[in-house]
């Protein structure tokens, strides 16, 4: 009788434990995710600092130039296309909105400020993330899972110096330049749609572009571009470099998931950072 009572109480306590575990599971998941985020943020920051420390080395120049070509020069076409059509859409929308208020003269101001302050840096960062960032993650990820990074270690070649530093420097140089190109081509796009296609006044458009833009707008845009460059390249390199540490998958699948994570995370962080940097600079 006593044994039966003991068995019953043990079964009850097990059931209570299971229930508690079930009820707590959402909080556990949130806690785990939060800890993982904090861990990864800290690790990414250390990763960035270590890679930056290894920048200054006489053999880095050739690798930086190579990465400048890949991240910067090779992204020119996509930046020109996206910039031009973004400008055209801005010109089109602002024309139809402002013409109702009789303020079509302000099209140039709207297009120029939108592009230089916000759209230029943000869209450039997102486009480079999609084109070069994903490729960086996939390339480094494959190098990791095929032991090429371990091979560098065994050859006493520092992988951070060899693979990561040149990409960070190339991104920091490329992002502002491509942003400038995006801004310029966007303004031309706005001119094409508002002036050439819809018949707004050319002189007014160009005058408003010139008069509304201040040096601060340009420097703020470039500050954002540099911040985004650091975020995008760090996230993409980090995700590839530690693709083998993923808990949810291994091998080629891990590289695929890391690439997805890198693109999504970079894009979200660019938008979050945009708000933070804007609120600090404004």
């Amino acid at each position, binding site marked *: 009788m006593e044994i039966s009572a003991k068995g019953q109480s043990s079964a009850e306590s097990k059931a209570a434990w299971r229930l508690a575990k079930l009820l707590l599971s959402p909080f556990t998941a949130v806690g785990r995710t939060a800890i993982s985020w904090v861990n990864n943020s800290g690790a990414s920051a250390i990763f960035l600092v270590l890679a930056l420390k290894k920048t200054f080395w006489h053999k880095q120049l050739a690798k930086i130039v190579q990465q400048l070509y890949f991240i910067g020069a090779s992204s020119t076409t996509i930046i020109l296309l996206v910039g031009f059509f973004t400008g055209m859409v801005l010109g089109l929308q602002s024309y139809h909105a402002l013409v109702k208020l009789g303020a079509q003269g302000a099209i140039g101001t709207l297009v120029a400020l939108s592009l230089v302050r916000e759209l230029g840096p943000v869209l450039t960062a997102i486009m480079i993330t999609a084109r070069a960032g994903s490729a960086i993650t996939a*390339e480094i990820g494959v190098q990791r899972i095929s032991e090429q990074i371990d091979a560098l270690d065994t*050859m006493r070649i520092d992988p951070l110096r060899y693979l990561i530093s040149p990409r960070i420097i190339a991104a920091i140089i490329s992002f502002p330049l491509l942003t400038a190109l995006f801004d310029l081509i966007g303004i031309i796009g706005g001119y094409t749609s508002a002036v050439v296609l819809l018949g707004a006044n050319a002189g007014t458009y160009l005058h408003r572009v010139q008069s509304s833009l201040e040096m601060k707008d340009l420097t703020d845009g470039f500050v954002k571009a540099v911040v985004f460059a650091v975020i995008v390249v760090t996230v993409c390199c980090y995700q590839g470099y530690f693709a083998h540490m993923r808990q949810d998958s291994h091998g080629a699948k891990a590289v695929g998931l890391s690439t997805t994570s890198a693109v999504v995370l970079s894009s979200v962080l660019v938008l979050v950072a945009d708000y933070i940097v804007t609120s600090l600079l404004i």
Partner: protein
Amino acid sequence: MDTPLIEFKNVTKRFGRRTVLEGVNLKIYEGEVTTIIGLSGGGKTVLLKHIIGLIKPDEGTILFRGKPLNGMSKSEVDASLAQMSYMFQDNALFDSMTVYENIALPLRERTTLTKAEIDRKVMARIEQTELTDSSRKFPSELSGGMQKRAALARALVIDPTIVLFDEPTSGQDPVRKNAILSMIAQYQRKFGFTAIVVSHEIPDVYFISNRILALYEHNIVFQGTPEELEEFDHPFKDEVIRSLEGLQKELTGLHSKRQFKVMYHGQMKRRSLKDTYCVAVFKLESLDNIIETLGHESAQEAIQSMGVYIDKHFGAIGGFSTRRSINEFVTVFPYSELDEAEDLLEDFVKDFQEHGIAEIWAEARERAAPGTCVDFIILAGLAQGQPIAEIETIIASAESKQKEIGRLRCAAGE
């Protein structure tokens, strides 16, 4: 004995709850080929990665030339590890670089050599590993064996004093396994480095290793010479050594040394003391010349073919054979007198020359440079014994009587 080059003292490594190495003690000596054998997934690669510093032990000490690595300054550790090269199981060649660029990489990144000096060193290694025609190709354009050679060339280009080979023969057939191993042994003799080879599937492990270390159930259960391993009695032998013997049988069709001894004792027990038997010791002479001229694979094919022909000729009449060393075979004719054994040998040589070597040549012609020529020389010695005598004595007697019984000279370009 000298101070070991590398010594593990009670090294333990765990990954989470899984223990991979537990209290491992081992010694590796300079200038030798040390082979670490063990079951697949038994922690051999983890052990090797501890040596090159890719993994740190959770407990225990690793000593390099008598000094603990964890007690050295960073520059001392770097200097110690810089003497080592590592050849990965899957080669780990950079697939976006050509063979030349892969081999040149450590020199370009680690040294201050000029472009011309780097080119000279890289081309020398490319020639030595017979990759001249493939130097501008990408790894994905090469065969498995060529990729191995490219990885070996990259490992050797910095003139290391220690080279670690992680499963260098994985995914190869028995002939290629031995060909790769023969290549490692040849380069080890040529360049004088210390070779540490990890494998669970080397048929020729006994013939090329100076020392063998056996990793079993997270620990080193044996370290010693191949001869000592033969006398070693442990459950490890049942699992690992038998599989190696299986590979050896797959290669030559002959019995392992152990099986040979068992058969010998079984046969002799049934004989009266007055009975006699014969022992023949065969040798494929100048193996190095064959390797030099036709390559490692052809040399292995020649050894394989010789084993197959020995088995074919003498197995049918009750003889049993084993491989004694890399190019030597022993056959016991339990019921033959000397005269009869000599006749059998003649038939064997004739058949092996007409068919065996001819087949090897047919294959080798495609690989060898036009006009190259090498002699296949077969030596054999016969001795007669009685059941009371020790087999080793009869073998030694047969070996001392070895003479040339066959020679085939042929030009690859013919």
